[in-house]
């Protein structure tokens, strides 16, 4: 139930994120979710969820880019009032701490918590639809 996510170390430099995205575009890799956690210290972490993470990892490594695969959970969020509030309420009741979250394509909400598997179980138990890794691949084709 965990989705492979790429965490990429990027320094503040004009055009750096553009370069990374271009690299993935060249290999026809589709980005399903995207987020930048920036700092004031001159660097940040770019989170990417893509359709073919292994290929993306290889491409990034070839270019000496510092990257790690860090799984996240992904809940499909219906576009109506109260859904996000409910997700957060469930997680907080389960004493789970959200480290970051971002919205991707098709109402996919990616969430990184301190205990991802537990979080996925909690949400699934409340009848939320959880995206699986293979959904990303099939979603593209």
């Amino acid at each position, binding site marked *: 139930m965990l989705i492979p996510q790429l965490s990429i170390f990027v320094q503040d430099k004009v055009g750096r994120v553009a370069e990374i995205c271009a690299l993935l575009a060249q290999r026809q890799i589709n980005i399903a979710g995207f987020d930048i956690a920036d*700092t004031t210290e*001159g*660097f*940040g*972490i770019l989170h990417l969820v893509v359709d073919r993470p292994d290929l993306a990892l290889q491409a990034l490594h070839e270019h000496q880019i510092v990257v790690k695969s860090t799984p996240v959970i992904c809940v499909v969020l219906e576009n109506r009032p109260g859904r996000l509030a409910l997700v957060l309420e469930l997680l907080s009741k389960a004493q789970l701490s959200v480290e970051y979250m971002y919205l991707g394509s098709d109402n996919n909400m990616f969430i990184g918590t301190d205990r991802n598997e537990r979080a996925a179980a909690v949400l699934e138990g409340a009848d939320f639809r959880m995206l699986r890794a293979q959904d990303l691949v099939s979603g593209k084709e």
Partner: protein
Amino acid sequence: MYLHPHLETMSRRDLEALQLERLQRTLALAAEAPFYRERLASAGIEPARIRSLADLRHIPLTSKDDLRRSYPKGMLAVAEEDVVRMHASSGTTGKPTVIFHTAHDLDAWTDLVARSLYAAGMRRRDVFQNMMTYGLFTGGLGLHYGAERVGMLVIPASSGNSKRQVQLIQDFGTTAVHITPSYALHLAQEVPQFGVADPRDLGLKFAVMGAEPYSIGTARKIEAAFGAKVFNCYGLSEMNGPAVAFECAERNGMHLWEDNYILEILDPETLEPLPPGAKGELVLTTINRTGMPILRYRTKDLTRILPEPCPCGRVHQRIERIMGRTDDMLIIGGVNVFPSQVEHVLMELPEVGSTYQIVLTKENCLDRMTVKVELRDPAFTGNLAQLHALQKRIEHELKSALLLTCRVKLVEPGDIPPSQGKAVRVVDERGGN
């Protein structure tokens, strides 16, 4: 005009006779230290056979590496119980350079500082505020005791905290300060915010400036800002510290106190002596130090002797303000830093590569050091908080090794141009002082 009229104005001949007598005594003493016993023996030198100052050149040179290798006590020439103080400065790698002083050594050093301050015109009615860092660094205690010996009221303010510095100056009528040129420029900018419209209203008369190289232009700028006279002070911890050489009231070159040191100017490549007036590396021998005599020490500082006699009447030769270094030592906010120290710290940290770059900039007239470090892939977990912690840890490690606060910037592999020699490792954007 002279605090030590006899020692300052004796004839050249008498001075050289005194130097030879002290050199012979120093050699006998040095041979008591394990390092020099071996060094002199392997060079085939018997101290008793050094019969003229010209014979000095047969003695091998001493380098900072020699000090590091004999750390901590290999150059100690007296019993440990005779040592009353130590000072230390940064070494080129992990180990600092330590100098031990006996009571005699401190007394002699204090005399030189007092003589220097007196030559500049300071007297017992003056109030001396020492804005140099106290501690292992020699600029604090060294000037402190010398200023006391002149009879001045000494305020051991130490460095930083401009608001308090200004208040002390105002409350106690400070007339003389010991300050780095960069801090002087910074302070001049800050003074108005503490209710003093013009730094000249502070009433300072003397600014003793050292620890960093600076140009005449900077000295004049500081003089204009404070309405005080700037006196250049030269020293290095290996040779006690400040007041190895000092400007007299003429302020045209620094008298190097030759009753305590023998000076040579050598070609840094061939290590042969250069004719008077030629620019080269300053090499010094202590001849009035008992705890830890050092023979023919390569200071790595470039200067030249001003061969003409000084109108002030002192016999001690003058050297030009320091014109550069023969090694890659950096002087950052008055602190000596070798790039190899940074490298040494980074090599201990598996999370980062050994590729680094030191970037030096000015912020509000103060030196700022940023170290760019490449993050290594295996250390990356994808966690932002861990990256922050790593950055802080490197900053902390560098601070404890360099005794200097610096900023660490984590960069991606390949961001730093591969170093071809030392120059690329350091980007100095401070501009000339």
